């Protein structure tokens, strides 16, 4: 009898603890949201939009690396596919509303993601990384030679146009709140996916793929779907980025970009929702600060150094380490 009461007591206290943790998370999220809404009052909106675009890119990437355990070294291809498609459409069809251009760009990246996925999930682990890298290089060569991309020069002067036909996006504040809405949409979508039964299967695949297979899950199909969703969201980030900066360039398609998004995710914390956002903010800021100062030419070695440091010293990333610290000191 006494035993039963203690058990229910423990259960209740666990539930209470979870509830209080959830409440804390909710408060944190509300504070962050308020900060994002107020940020353009104190910071340059275009810079904030750059951060949000890369944050969405990293969030999309993290769905694969952090929750499915797949390391894609070719995500630049999807960013560029979204970027170039949207840029081409908005430049050449003046009647097109901005959101249509972005939607088609996202769709193009999603289709490309399907193509990559079908080929790449045939191999695992390290091979997966090499294959996605090689495929992205193929896409890079395509963009270099294709007549509509402007080759080495890229696309310039892409019009921002009107959202839904009547919101003028040439206003930086209107643009900012649109980008924020897109980012939040993508972030919440990933949050929802990770929490869903589908997300649980992804995590199972990450932790122990053979066991997931033996439990009867069609692992390849789950991986493919995760890959396609991730590619689509990366394309969305690229599309929006093109509208913000009014240009699409080969930088987006280069392997260097694939490396950068890995660094953002790893540094912020793989497998945490907020990690990629923190990582993207950090990397974009760092690159901006370095470009201002005398170390402008040293961006690459410094990024490389951060890679080495993160892998050697704190693999959980900034957010992951904070979570570990809290967990240790709270209980």
């Amino acid at each position, binding site marked *: 009898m006494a035993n039963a009461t203690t058990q229910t007591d423990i259960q209740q206290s666990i539930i209470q603890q979870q509830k209080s943790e959830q409440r804390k998370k909710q408060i944190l999220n509300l504070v962050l949201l308020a900060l994002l809404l107020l940020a353009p009052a104190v910071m340059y909106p275009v810079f904030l939009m750059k951060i949000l675009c890369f944050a969405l890119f990293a969030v999309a990437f993290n769905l694969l690396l952090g929750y499915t355990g797949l390391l894609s070294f070719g995500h630049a291809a999807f960013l560029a596919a979204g970027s170039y498609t949207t840029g081409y459409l908005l430049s050449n069809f003046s009647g097109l509303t901005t959101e249509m251009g972005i939607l088609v760009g996202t769709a193009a990246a999603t289709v490309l993601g399907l193509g990559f996925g079908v080929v790449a999930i*045939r191999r695992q*682990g390290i091979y997966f990384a*090499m294959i996605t890298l*090689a495929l992205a290089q193929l896409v890079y060569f395509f963009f270099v030679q294709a007549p509509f991309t402007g080759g080495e020069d890229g696309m310039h002067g892409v019009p921002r146009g009107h959202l839904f036909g009547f919101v003028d996006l040439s206003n930086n504040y209107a643009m900012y709140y649109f980008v924020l809405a897109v980012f939040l949409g993508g972030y919440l979508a990933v949050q929802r996916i990770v929490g869903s039964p589908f997300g649980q299967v992804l995590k199972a695949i990450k932790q122990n793929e053979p066991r997931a297979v033996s439990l009867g899950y069609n692992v390849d199909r789950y991986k493919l779907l995760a890959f396609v969703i991730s590619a689509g969201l990366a394309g969305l980030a690229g599309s929006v980025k093109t509208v913000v900066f009014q240009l699409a360039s080969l930088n987006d398609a280069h392997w260097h970009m694939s490396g950068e998004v890995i660094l953002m995710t790893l540094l912020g914390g793989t497998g945490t929702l907020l990690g990629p956002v923190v990582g993207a903010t950090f990397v974009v800021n760092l690159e901006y600060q370095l470009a201002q100062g005398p170390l402008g030419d040293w961006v*690459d070695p*410094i990024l*490389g150094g951060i890679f*080495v440091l993160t892998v*050697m010293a704190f693999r959980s990333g900034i957010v992951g380490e904070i979570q570990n610290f809290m967990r240790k000191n709270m209980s």
Partner: protein
Amino acid sequence: MTEILGVPVAVLSGQLMLGVINGAFYALLSLGLAVIFGLLKIINFAHGAMYMLGAMCTVLIFDAFGVNYWVALFVAPVIVGCFGILLEYFLLRRIAGQDHIYSLLLTFGIALILQGVLTNIYGVSGLRYSMPEVFRGGMNLGFMFLPYYRAWVIVAALLVCFATWFMIEKTRLGSYLRAGTEDSQLMQGFGINVPLLISLTYGFGVMLAAFAGALAAPIYSVSPVMGSNILIVVFAVVVIGGMGSIAGAVVTGLMMGVVEGFTKVFYPEGSAAVIFLVMVVVLLIRPSGLFGKEA
């Protein structure tokens, strides 16, 4: 007889030879990757950077000390190999038990550092390295002109590939390496110094890359960024061939060089992409690669 499929024989055989030379470099690089992968189970993303270091080193020790080509061909790989052993000892070893993704990212970071630092010092335009006197000129084979140096590249690369094969398959050290590839824990139990073997293996793989770089110095533009693009091609080659066997890596490397050479004759725009397309086709038909054992 002077034309095949509407292309002059001289052009065709010339491109074919260039293809074989590229293939020889692919073979050397993928061989090094395969040797490292066999024992360490990691993909060395710094392999392109090591190739670049080999070439840079050859040029720099010539400029600084007047070290001639033949000595450099030996010294440059040794210097870079020692550097590789240091990397293994101080960095790679410390994350050995972790997910292989981390070692991949670590070597990627190292490659970024090396390429970035050297770019800041020497620029990207490329250093000049003059061809050794012996290799100036060439011979006329009747149907094509064969420069001596290019012939030497093919011979040297094949010799080194053969020597590597011989060492791994026929010597005692090689038998340790093969045993370690199968089960390194068991071998440790037999009293063999596995950590030392791992260091040496990594150093040796890196040496092969640096040797390719030294070999490339007189014919390719030597610059800090020369390694990154060739590395991605070599990854595709490795995926096509599978890293199961040494002969497989060498044969696939040469074959892909030839395929690339042919494409340059018939459809020049596609020559940069053709190896990646072959990779896609191979993955769709035979996912484990041409010489691979399992997926």
